[in-house]
């Protein structure tokens, strides 16, 4: 399928929401790829961090289906290194926000294995509420 690029998509509600929630200028990113190059969990992602912001730039809502936005740990390595000062974790957060608002929770608490819950630090569970639950 050929992806359509149009003014309507570039200036869609989706792009406006991402920019408003993240507070980032999407077009400031010039796609150098340094975030992807240094991301410690990029290998576990289905899409590189730089591709996530690229799809957001192009108004491609299918970026919300990507596992990358959930795998991002907001470790801020990319922010520290971005030559254009783009705060990519804020963008990831915005995409998670939009995804959660429009759909279901990413994690169903009731289905977490009790053994895992016992072993997880409390801080992780609280953080998980914030990141994964509607």
């Amino acid at each position, binding site marked *: 399928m*050929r*992806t*359509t*690029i*149009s*003014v309507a998509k*570039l200036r869609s509600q989706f792009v406006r929401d991402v920019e408003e929630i993240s507070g980032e*200028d999407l*077009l*400031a990113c*010039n*796609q150098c790829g340094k975030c992807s190059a240094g991301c410690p969990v990029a290998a576990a992602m289905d899409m590189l961090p*730089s*591709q996530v912001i*690229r*799809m957001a*730039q*192009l108004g*491609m809502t299918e970026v919300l289906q990507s596992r990358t936005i959930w795998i991002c740990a907001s470790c801020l390595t990319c922010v520290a290194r971005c030559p254009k000062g783009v705060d990519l974790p804020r963008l990831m957060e915005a995409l998670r926000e939009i995804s959660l608002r429009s759909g279901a929770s990413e994690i169903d608490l009731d289905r977490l294995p009790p053994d895992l819950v016992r072993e997880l630090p409390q801080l992780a569970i609280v953080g998980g509420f914030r990141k994964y639950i509607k």
Partner: protein
Amino acid sequence: MSRIGVFICHCGINIAATVDVERVAEEAGRMPGVAFATHYKYMCSDPGQSLIRQAIAEHGLDGVVVVACSPAMHERTFRQAVAAAGLNPYRCEMANIREQCSWVHQHEREEATAKAVDIVRTMVEKVKRDEELVPLRLPIVRRAMVVGGGIAGMEAALNIADAGYPVVLVEREDRLGGKMARLSSTYLNFEAAPGLLEEKIRQVLEHSNIQVLFNARVTKLEGYVGNFAVTVEMSEGPRTEEVGAVVVATGWDPYPLERLPEYGGGQIPDVVDGLTFEEMLRTGLQRPSDGRVPQEVVFVQCAGSRDPEHGVSYCSKVCCMYVAKQAMMYKERVPGGQAYVFYIDIRSGGKGYDEFVQRAMEEYDVLYLRGKVSKIFRRGDRVVVWGSDTLVGRPLELEADLVVLATAMLPSREALALAQTLHIQADQYGFYSEAHPKLRPVESLTAGVFLAGVGQGPKDIPETVAQAAAAAAKVIQLFAQDAMVQEPTVAYVIEDLCSACGACVAVCPYGAREIHPVRPIATVNPALCQTCGACVVACPNKASRIHNWEPVQVLAMADVVI
């Protein structure tokens, strides 16, 4: 008896690792007529040269053989060195045992050494018979011709004229300004091109040292540096201009749209090239098909460039920058509009250039898409662009109102013919070839013919202006000399032997030979002679000779090694 000095160079290990330089020195010392022979690590270095000068004084040498590299490399160096010691420079010769010996016989030390000794032997015999020559001094016509009245030609003409030398500027059209006259504005500051140009044109037309010939074409160039006769064809007939130097500034033509059928070039009216879009920016942004103001504009970079299959493998260099400028200007005119740019790479090298492109992205929301467009076609009254974004790895489709192709810069369509007329070289595309890509970028290989502007290769306005000023400086440098100094080792005629048969005239590739208009002899124009020796071979009477390449010398050289 001659008193010749032989100086053998190790050239570091270039020679010494293969040739036994000590043995060559010993053997040379025993050759008849050799008064002194030695060897040294680098003869071309300051200590090496002073070693030669001291030996000339101490041993009363009357000739020098430097046994080292090719004369193309250091003949001038060593001739200057011996001249400083009071010896006539033409009594110094190079015996090449590097390119013609050590480099080609690296695994045959014994044979290489024997060959080196033989080479020295021949040059010793030559120097014994070398005449003391004096460089030729030829007059200079201190008037320049500039071919092409674009920004390059005008800049060169103004620089030469301001230095006080008359200039004749030849323009094929009936106006000055060239391609720059078709631009709306220039990057980086959006300064209006017509304004910048009008000032230049006024300066050229009002300059008392500049004569402009409109509707004129150069059809013939005769003579040589300092003394050219150029035939210029005009509507009122041909005229001949006597000049000492020529600056070629014939510029460029855009790649024809018709040669890009996959982009709808020449088929779809709303697919235009960069120069046409410049015109639209000047006269009103209405698309060709229906006069509507385009709301979405797609720019396609590398349209024809970097595309060997389309015959242009080079980068046209200016497109990345002017596309950014055009997209920004478009946004200024149509604030609600959207500009897209398809690119392979963004080449924005230059002071402030990359910042300019980044501004297009950030401040003007120009969307850059990485990938070359594959196809452009019509859908209703819109133009569909099929491209890709290799950054996300998706094929793309875009509907636009107007597509601007940043087509390749080609050399002016008349450049190849003009190169032949001016006896200068051009590359496979028709761009004039510079004498050296790094160190002689504004000179052609023909002395006295200089290059400026896009005719030599794609470049933008500031680069063109810089090159034009450099070409003008070369012309001024030439004109500032008292006379043209030329090597005296050229052909001459022993008049008593010459029967004016004309064999030399027919064989000379440089047009240096003529039959005397009155007397029954052949003559040599020493300024044109390149010392090739063709006339010497052709002459049935041995009347054609070359100074310091006399038959007696060549035979003596052969005698000692055969």
